[in-house]
């Protein structure tokens, strides 16, 4: 039954561009996919190490700028750009992880907010590198070059959808393997009781830094995908509302689960688009704030774990 459901879901996802005719709806699905990668990335930290990063937009933005700058200014291949979009934020994640070694809870939150604040100001003020508030237009589309065949440009929404879908599936499987490995068990042990975990020989520092590196790299990849999709990078990628959206997706979907963040990402990308006709963006953000509070009050574990518990116990 479960396998059947999963197969059906995959079939629906894989054929979406064939029956989703409205380009706007397809756009919404692509954004949902990009946010699913971001939510999975934040979840590694918030869900599995228990540390809240409120600077995740910084990793997202660094990823977007990394590939934007390499492909626009140096005209490198978007694939190398996407690789850099993963590597550079991962490096930043390593630095933050190393720096934040001894910081937990609110201190960690403040360090990540400050990091994002500084990076955002740099993106506005370092005109020579980033063009400042004007941003970088003309980020090239991703091209798929298979030897022997003409280069296939992933310029269309339908084609780009598959690239994003593949990334989501890969991210999910990667997180799944990670969580089931020794590393995942160590992270959960550290989250549940750090003193105890360290006392049985788990190197807390090592694993937290590792989680930060992977999480930042994934967020950066999401940023890279976003840059090649919108074909434009500006300091707006550092907007705090991106971080807020990721936090809500993870907390509402179910932190510390792997399906939760994806479900959260889909809900919180599709819902605002569906409501767009009725309400303005400000109303949505107001609603986000209230919803975050409501979820914490009434469904503190998140949507997916709550529903799962209900299904098992009819």
């Amino acid at each position, binding site marked *: 039954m479960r396998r059947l459901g999963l197969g059906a879901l995959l079939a629906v996802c894989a054929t979406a561009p064939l029956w989703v005719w409205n380009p706007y709806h397809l756009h919404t699905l692509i954004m949902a996919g990009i946010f699913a990668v971001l939510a999975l990335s934040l979840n590694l930290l918030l869900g599995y190490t*228990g540390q*809240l990063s*409120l600077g995740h937009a910084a990793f997202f933005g660094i990823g977007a700028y990394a590939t934007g700058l390499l492909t626009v200014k140096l005209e490198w291949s978007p694939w190398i750009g996407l690789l850099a979009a993963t590597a550079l934020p991962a490096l930043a994640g390593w630095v933050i992880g190393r*720096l934040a070694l*001894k*910081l937990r*809870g*609110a*201190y960690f*939150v*403040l*360090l990540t*907010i*400050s*990091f994002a*604040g*500084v990076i955002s*100001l740099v993106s*506005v*003020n370092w005109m020579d590198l980033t063009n400042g508030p004007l941003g970088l237009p003309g980020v090239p589309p991703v091209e798929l070059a298979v030897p022997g065949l003409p280069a296939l440009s992933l310029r269309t929404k339908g084609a780009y959808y598959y690239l994003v879908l593949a990334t989501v599936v890969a991210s999910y499987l990667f997180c799944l393997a990670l969580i089931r490995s020794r590393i995942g068990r160590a992270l959960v042990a550290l989250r549940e009781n750090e003193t105890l975990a360290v006392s049985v020989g788990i190197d807390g520092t090592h694993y937290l830094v590792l989680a930060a590196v992977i999480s930042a790299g994934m967020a950066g990849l999401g940023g890279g995908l976003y840059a090649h999709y919108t074909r434009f990078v500006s300091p707006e990628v550092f907007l*705090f509302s991106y971080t*807020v959206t990721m*936090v809500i997706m993870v*907390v509402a979907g179910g932190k510390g689960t792997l399906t939760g963040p994806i479900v959260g990402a889909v809900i919180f990308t599709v819902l605002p688009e569906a409501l767009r006709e009725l309400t*303005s963006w*400000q*109303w949505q*953000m*107001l609603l*986000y*704030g*209230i*919803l*975050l*509070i409501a979820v*914490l*009050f009434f469904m*503190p574990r998140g949507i997916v774990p709550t529903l799962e518990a209900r299904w098992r116990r009819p």
Partner: protein
Amino acid sequence: MEQLLQHLLNGLLLGATYSLLGIGLTLVFGLMNVVNFAHGEFYTLGAYAVFAALVGASVSFFVAIPLAIAVGAALGALCERVLLRPLRDESIDTVMLVMIGLWIAMQNAELLGWGGVAKSVGTPFSTQPVVLGHVSVSPLRIFVFVVSAAFIVGAHLLLARTKLGRAMRATFQDRETAALMGVSIERIHTITFAFGAGLAAAAGALLGPVFLLYPSMGDLASLKAFSVVILGGLGNFAGAALGGIVLGVAEELGAGYVSSGYRDAVGFVIIVAVLLLRPSGLFARAERVG
């Protein structure tokens, strides 16, 4: 040299309001163990309340300020009753997420209520600067400085010298014992949070007329408040008061001699540097870690 003096003076004047912002936050953190990410929103509320009182009710500027503080404190009390009381025994992280939710909700409610266009508040003070030797300063800034300093001293006296202040400190040191001594625990929680919110609203009411009013002004205020609190050490009242002055002067010098584009980066850099090098704050003896 004159330029340096001017920067130092501006930094001192600005710093006093940062101190005012910081003590409200450090009080709520130090006493209640609540990381109030919505602190800046109470600051915004204070600023807009002054604007509303001046434009809507056309009261005097000097009446509008206490009104704004009352509004801030009342909303703070309401938030404590509705949001914090049910979560009293939850982890600090859950409460933190709830406060983040409150922050987002309040900021966008302001945006809906007032629109995104910046507003300015008129004051009865002359815009003609007062020249003192080689430096000059506007009368409004002097007024703001004096009132901020008065609030800081008043808050300190209230905490250190009054019965209410003693009850507050007792409650958060040992809830059960305080209750046994006849302290109404629930009331003290509400009053403490309202007090912190009122101080933030006071800072907003005072600084609003100096700068411009816009719905996201609270983000910067929160940043400054957190920098100040981290500089001074979490929960350290005197540290926050001093930290505000340090931040104000550092910002003025940074903007004057380095680059004005990076003025707001000073606060971030201070947070990062202090957290990394001396996490208990610059002026700490011993402090509580949340």
